[in-house]
């Protein structure tokens, strides 16, 4: 087991190098560069910049170098832990990402926990009471949940809260706390605001997860080992939780891997709509302005999360399923 994890960790740097190259190709793919985007922005606001100045800036930022040279410079800096400077903000990318990362992670984890806490019990109830009134109700809610785009849900909730209750549900903080230093009051304010975005981000995942849980458990409930457990004289709810639920859970655990990065990237539109201080809008802006090292840095973090998430779910799966643990 330890060997298996060590092997996987050894591959990680190589995968990251491959990803970094692909990411660099993609962020370089749009025509033009940061400066053409910058000139366009200036032009639209009525000001202009001389060709000489542009050439000077282009040289200063290294944008006049060849693709390969730019890539190797970027990689060289990354190896020293330097994410480079944001061309737009003129600040270190590491700082820009770091400021957003904490809240992004908090929101993602909150939404993740909420998703599982709702989906798993709902799935278990539906499977053990198939075709009951509550099962049908949950089914309808789940279909609506899967089918509604979450930014749409966010808009509806924002409008509803504003129109009928006169409260503003955007952001993660009340206005007085947005720029305040961390304090117990600010944490309390965060906990008060995090519910709605957490729910909006998690609703589709919750619906999908509870449908998978229901289907898996329905399959497992028909297995002979459930009859064996009943024939032993176990209480029904105890045997359901101990045997079939345990087995129905395994396929869910393997989804944690792609769930983690999806929570970060999936929050882009919702975060923009709900004005969340989140990494999503930062990435969007960086891509539009061709602020390539900032975008590249964020995408690298996504890739890293994907690899780590996959490793994490593989390890978890091995921990809970002896069939995988013993063979590997």
């Amino acid at each position, binding site marked *: 087991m330890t060997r298996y994890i060590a092997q996987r960790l050894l591959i990680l740097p190589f995968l990251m190098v491959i990803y970094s190259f692909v990411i660099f190709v993609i962020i370089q793919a749009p025509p033009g560069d940061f400066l053409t985007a910058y000139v366009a922005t200036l032009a639209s606001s009525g000001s202009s910049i001389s060709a000489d100045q542009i050439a000077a800036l282009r040289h200063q930022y290294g944008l006049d170098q060849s693709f390969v040279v730019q890539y190797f410079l970027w990689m060289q800096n990354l190896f020293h832990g330097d994410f480079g400077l944001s061309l737009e903000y003129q600040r270190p990318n590491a700082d820009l990402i770091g400021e957003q990362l904490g809240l992004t992670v908090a929101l993602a984890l909150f939404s993740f926990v909420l998703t599982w806490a709702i989906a798993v019990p709902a799935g278990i109830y539906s499977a053990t009471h198939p075709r009951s009134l509550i099962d049908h109700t949950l089914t309808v809610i789940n279909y609506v949940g899967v089918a509604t785009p979450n930014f749409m849900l966010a808009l509806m909730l924002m409008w509803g809260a504003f129109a009928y209750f006169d409260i503003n549900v955007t952001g993660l903080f009340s206005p007085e706390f947005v720029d305040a230093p961390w304090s117990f009051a600010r944490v309390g304010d965060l906990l008060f605001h995090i519910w709605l975005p957490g729910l909006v981000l998690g609703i589709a995942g919750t619906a999908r997860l509870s449908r998978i849980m229901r289907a898996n458990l329905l399959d497992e409930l028909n297995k002979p080992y459930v009859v064996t457990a009943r024939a032993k004289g176990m209480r029904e709810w105890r045997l359901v939780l101990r045997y079939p639920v*345990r087995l129905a859970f395994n396929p869910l655990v393997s989804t944690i891997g792609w769930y983690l990065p999806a929570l970060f990237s999936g929050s882009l539109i919702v975060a923009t709509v709900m004005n969340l201080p989140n990494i999503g809008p930062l990435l969007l802006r960086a891509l539009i302005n061709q602020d390539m090292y900032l975008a590249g840095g964020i995408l690298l973090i996504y890739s890293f999360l994907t690899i780590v998430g996959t490793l994490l779910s593989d390890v978890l799966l091995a921990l809970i399923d002896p069939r995988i643990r013993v063979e590997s």
Partner: protein
Amino acid sequence: MTPLLSVRDLRVSFQLDEGVVRAVDGTSFDVQPGQVLGIVGESGCGKSVTMKAILQLVDRPGQIDTGEISFARPNGEIVDLAKLSPRGATMREIRGGEIALIPQEPMASFSPVHTVGDQIIEAILLHSHRWEQDGRKITRRDARDITVGLFRDVGISMPEQRVDAYSWQLSGGLRQRAMIAMALSCKPRLLIADEPTTAIDVTTQAQVLALLRDLQAKYNTAIIFITHDLGVIAQMASYVVVMYLGKVMEQGPVDAIFHSPKHPYTRALLRSIPSMYGQTRVALPVISGALPHPFNRPPGCPFHPRCPDVMAVCSVGVPRLLPAGDDQLASCFLHHTAAEPV
């Protein structure tokens, strides 16, 4: 002698979208303490459903319609299992503790993610009072020791190591032995073995049957042995019940059933056993016709469309299960004229 278990006119049906399937249709038989009762019949004759009904384990949409399942509990009390709530405390106490089940597929009947020992220890702890002496509580440690002892009893070598094995690490024979150990773990008075040797190879099958016979002699546990294999019945059972389409066709002591079968169905079954001395390259004898579709049961005697001795009355009335010969019962108009009330 009061029977240990007495099934009277048991009816179990499944309400499906396509119609009603009467899987068990008026079955009656007794099991005496310490007796090995063989129930034999083709696939779909209702033998497994009868056993599930005894333990109140019939899955939805199946349900027990009518009938009595009287069971003598260790304290002398007689309970009607058919009237008990499937999830109630009494039923749970009886399941595993007083009536245990040896299922058909030992591989699928153990959870693959728990060790076999873990699953047996759980059963012992559920019915720990059956092992308690002088009011001393059974701990998990004790239950583990009991499990190791049971493994030794059922002939599992290296029992201390095997307790911590997963079912898929054991061979088919060992798995079924572990299952038998689990069934015996709470000293039941009645063991229901539902085709326990169907899923394992012939050599192992012989070993498992020998083991069951030894254990039966040692503990004097009554066994209901369900199978479609008449050879197994001849080895194991002292009394035989022959079922067809949810009804008892014939029942009697094993010698009488094999040497002077009364019902044409029993005779046909016996004729279709392949013989070691038969001619080669000759088609094996079969029962003519096919098993009727469950939604399309024949009127009258359920066997009459396939019966070589069919008479006009057979398609009209349903023959009752009445004495035929010295100590057998048969539901056949060849032996009496009494039909079931319509």
